[in-house]
């Protein structure tokens, strides 16, 4: 088990983590300090600053055109019809009960009683599933993968699975699409695009983006060659289903054919055939809804977290599921190893990372998920005090979100500090991981952003050739990219772990020893420096306690 105590101490305040090189995280003051050889790798990735002030100017507080018109009192009958259309039975009852007209007195009393019964029933329901009493915005904020969804400028982030292109959902309900190869930055706006909780690019496709909104799922069909900065809302397909809102999580099948959507209110998750807008419900009562979805990169399994202390792992061929009750709280986040054989997940209320391994997927075992009997704790992230030259720092707490890089070698984790202790910050911890032949989780270090910036969202670039590239959205509205330079032990993936085929390829490599003679010389060829593999791959073979010597983190001095 790995714990925070084994981590190298966090970088000094004022420094920014720039990159990982030679198995050590390098900090500095400015971004120019990247070695020249690496600058070309990142030159085209935009480092963005999206401060809140620029957005507030044109954010609409009130949606719709209602305030622009003079208030007009309609007849009760009309209002009831409108309420029926908008809200349903409860709306009609509410309208009748609050009518000022000299309506039939007994109708008013009757509807008042009916309304009371409705409230009582819903409160009963709400006491079973407390999240149902939240407003939909609070619900999204509660279940979103963003740390501070309600307050921060950046609400969702998604890398395109094949190219250097990403989408950013902002506080003003617009989405911007940045492409390294083109200067045009399309801004997506739609009448229904409100309170974006998640986004996902369609795999095996040039430019289709699914957006989880408050009332529906929008699927944007963007023309990658178009120069327009404001695609019309005609480019968006609206996928809505009664009772399925707000949508908080989306997952595309890695084979690109199906889209899953989940809502904390709906017990069923929906499988969409987006091209025809057909959907199939996958109902499973219990749990009260689905908050978070993660499709394994090999396409065989799906993690579905619920608002109560249970999560499910679906098998994606016959769509049967295994149910996993947790002890403490709901499953907050999870991520899959590239070959889909291991699931790491965290539980609200516990500061540990659990691991769940699955028997290797071969397709012949139809309708079996094949999970192991118990989940094991692989990392303990409880609060640890680091004595640094600049004073004490206390780091540790619950995990808010996790990301595993496509080669399966780095795991980034957002640890939310203790909310009661003000000086306990939200940090990103990075682990080195290895999935085969045995699972290993070793500390790498903490990432630090600019002064006062808290990490908001993390995502790995899906096809970074020289290792892994972590994109971090900070609470200041900055989006920075932190490269991890290493030689992957896996075969070079063409579609980095996104298609079952590539996963099969990596699975067949599994039998080879990881630390062959081949990998180390390769590392040395493009990693000149005196401290080659000081605590690198060779050190990983040692037990974790001795693998972390207590030397100070390297300071890269600007020249």
């Amino acid at each position, binding site marked *: 088990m790995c714990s925070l105590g084994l981590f190298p101490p966090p970088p000094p305040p004022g420094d920014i983590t720039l990159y990982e090189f030679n198995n050590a995280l390098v900090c500095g003051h400015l971004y120019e300090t990247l070695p020249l050889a690496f600058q070309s790798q990142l030159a085209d990735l935009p480092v963005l600053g999206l401060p809140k002030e620029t957005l507030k100017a044109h954010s609409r507080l009130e949606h719709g055109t209602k305030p622009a018109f003079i208030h007009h009192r309609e007849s009760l009958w009309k209002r009831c019809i409108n309420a029926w259309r908008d809200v349903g039975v409860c709306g009609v009852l509410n309208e009748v009960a609050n009518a000022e007209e000299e309506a039939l007195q007994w109708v008013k009393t009757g509807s008042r009683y009916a309304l009371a019964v409705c409230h009582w029933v819903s409160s009963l329901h709400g006491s079973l599933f407390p999240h149902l009493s939240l407003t939909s915005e609070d619900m999204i904020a509660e279940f979103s993968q963003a740390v501070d969804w309600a307050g921060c400028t950046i609400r969702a982030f998604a890398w395109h699975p*094949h190219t250097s292109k990403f989408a950013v959902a902002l506080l003003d309900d617009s989405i911007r699409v940045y492409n390294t190869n083109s200067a045009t930055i399309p801004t997506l706006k739609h009448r229904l695009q409100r309170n974006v909780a998640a986004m996902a690019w369609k795999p*095996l*496709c040039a430019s289709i983006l699914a957006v989880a909104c408050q009332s529906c799922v929008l699927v944007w069909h963007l023309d990658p060659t178009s120069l327009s900065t404001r695609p019309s809302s005609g480019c968006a397909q609206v996928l809505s289903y009664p009772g399925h809102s707000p949508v908080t999580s989306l997952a595309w099948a890695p084979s690109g*054919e199906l889209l899953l959507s989940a809502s904390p209110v709906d017990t069923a998750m929906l499988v969409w055939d987006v091209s*025809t807008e057909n959907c199939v419900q996958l109902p499973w009562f219990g749990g009260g809804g689905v908050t978070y979805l993660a499709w394994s990169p090999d396409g065989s399994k799906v993690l579905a977290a619920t608002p109560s202390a249970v999560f499910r792992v679906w098998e994606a061929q016959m769509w049967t599921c295994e149910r996993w009750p947790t002890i403490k709280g709901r499953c907050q986040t999870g991520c899959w190893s590239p070959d889909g054989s291991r699931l790491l997940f965290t539980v609200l209320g516990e500061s540990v990372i659990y691991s769940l391994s699955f028997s290797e997927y071969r397709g012949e075992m139809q309708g079996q998920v094949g999970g192991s009997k118990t989940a094991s704790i692989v990392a303990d992230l409880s609060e640890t005090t680091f004595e640094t030259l600049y004073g004490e720092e206390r780091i540790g707490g619950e995990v808010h979100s996790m990301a595993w890089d496509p080669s399966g070698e780095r795991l980034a984790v957002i640890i939310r500090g203790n909310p009661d202790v003000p000086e306990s910050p939200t940090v990103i911890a990075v682990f080195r991981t290895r999935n085969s032949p045995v699972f290993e989780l070793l500390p790498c270090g903490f990432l630090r952003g600019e002064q006062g910036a808290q990490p908001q969202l993390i995502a790995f670039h899906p096809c970074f050739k020289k290792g892994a590239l972590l994109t971090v959205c900070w609470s200041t509205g900055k989006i920075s990219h932190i490269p991890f330079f290493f030689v992957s032990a896996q075969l070079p993936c063409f579609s980095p772990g*996104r*298609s079952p085929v590539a996963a099969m390829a990596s699975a*067949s490599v599994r039998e080879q020893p990881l630390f062959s003679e081949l990998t180390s010389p390769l590392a040395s060829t493009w990693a000149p420096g005196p401290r080659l593999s000081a605590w690198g791959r060779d050190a990983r073979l040692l037990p974790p306690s001795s693998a972390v010597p207590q030397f100070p983190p390297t300071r890269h001095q600007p020249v």
Partner: protein
Amino acid sequence: MSAGPGQQQALLRQVLGWRVAAAVAWSVLLLPLCTAAFVVLSGIDPFHPLRWVSNSFNDLYTSYIIFCILLMSVVILVISIFNVEFYAVVPSIPCSRLALIGKIIHPQQVIHSVVHAVMGVLVAWCAAVMTKGKFQFLAVPCTSSESLDDAVPQVCLNEYHLFFLLSGAFMGYSYSLLYLVNNMNYLPFPIIQQYKYLRFRRSLPLLVKHSCVESLYLVRNFCIAYYFFGYIPRAWISTTMDLHIDSKLHPLDTLTGLLDLSLLYHAWLCGVFLLITWYITWLLFKIYATETHHFPVQPTFAEETDQCLPKILNSNPPLIIKFLALQDLMLLSQYSPVRRQEVFSLSQPGGHPHNWTAISKECLNLLSDLTQRLIAQQEAAAAANGRAKQPAGELKISPQTPGAIVTEDMSFQLQRSNVIPRAPMPSLVKSSLLPLKASPGSDVGTPFSSPILNCKAGILDLNSPWHGSVQSPHIMRRGPKLWTLNSDLQMNGSHQESFPMFSVVRAGSEAVQPSFIYTWLQNKQEQIKNFLSKRALIMYFFSKHPEASIQAVFSDAQMHIWALEGLSHLVAASFTEDQFGVVQTTLPAILNTLLTLQEVVDRHFKLPHVSSKPPRISGSLVDTSYKTLRFALRASLKTALYRIITVFGEHLNAVQVSTEHKKRLQQFLEYKE
């Protein structure tokens, strides 16, 4: 290669037989449950709940209920037989109202409707008997109305019972009609695989809701019908069976008679009972029939050779078998490495990749067939548009339009087809086809290998019953098929004199010398057509719905979608799994076919009348997924191309394809399509 029809029937029976049996068995097993629910609900008595429950449970064991269940089982059996006889994996979509009427009065459909009406009567009779009370018997004793003193016991007609029976017949007939109109004989394959029980459970609430609503409408319609025509059957029954009419009771074909809440409730409940039992039968058949079937890739025993996947794909089996085989191909290519290995394997003596060759050949044939069909449709549409814009008199007739293929063996028909003004052939498609023909290793049918075949299709259509019948040019303009070729020219000619057409014919060839009488007849025919086309009523029946015509073109696209998915997954898997390189030999042909199809499909979606977005599908019981198959095809085509391209990456530059396709590939490689 081709198995005899007898063998195919045996295969069909082997694959489908047990499925049908299981579906029938389950629907019969579910019947007692439905009956129990019906009995409980029909005896509903909100003021005496205890008595209601105890009464209904006592009723459940009585002999007549058991007899009713037996009778209903027979009904279910008959309904199942009709389901099996009428199912279709490719829906037949009527393109005009006349075609729809033609379908309704087709003898087969008439038999279907009559039998369903009779079955409806049987179900209604069972329902009436189980409901008891005033509905139970057709003949009831009554007293003559003249005077109470000399009360002569008479036998009177129970109109309630008659109402029930007639409503049953009405509902049975309506079910049959809706079955036809909604294409409920179409078997839609699910988008995800699920266990049968889960699929059934998922559809059950929808089924119940649909039946309840449907029954409400049917009862309303029946009441209206009975109000106007109810006296006819009543008089007929009472005279033939010598029953008196009880004059003390209200006749039911009056407003007061019909506004009987208990009557309406029981009629509605009877309708719900009928629809639920029949829909369950239909649903179970659908679920069982579309279940995956595991075809072996390589036969383990010699006698299984006819049942293995490559054989079935290459022979011409019943369509459902072909669909199941393609579905199985899609699943094996996606989920089963072991079976993929069998596909890539070489034959034991000889070392030929028979499995892969057979599978890829069939898939490519399917796709190029579709390409041809789409090209033909686009030509027709383009021709129609051209004519619409151009007055017929300005018809410029040149023997060859620019951009037409000129080959030595071009026949007279081909030339004529190219004469049609403004029929721009997709030039890119064509130019790419020629190198494809020459490309090595592409023994498969090229998408445009026989331009004559296109024309033949057109001529065949001319000979179809449609041509002889009355047709207006407007219909032809929107025709999904090859209406154009000859008929268009004749139509254009007929607008004024027949000379332009003559010149066309002369210019085309000297071989055909149409006699003067023939042309005169044609001329007259066209005049009649023109005359008729101006009548609004006829136009109403004949006008083709453009959406329906497009749906008709893509009605069997599910096959092509599976072929695309299967092929692309296999090719993508071959990158790591194909030990002998068998896939590489066909890779250029596959890429060419896919890119050509992509071209043609793109072009199709740019045609007028073609919406680029699928219509909203409400989550109803009746599946309308055939209406959106073309969108699914477009999406899976693109995904299939990207699947191959992401896996092979830069290696694709080494594959022999034409320059246009190379450009296209490059765009795909840069994710710019």
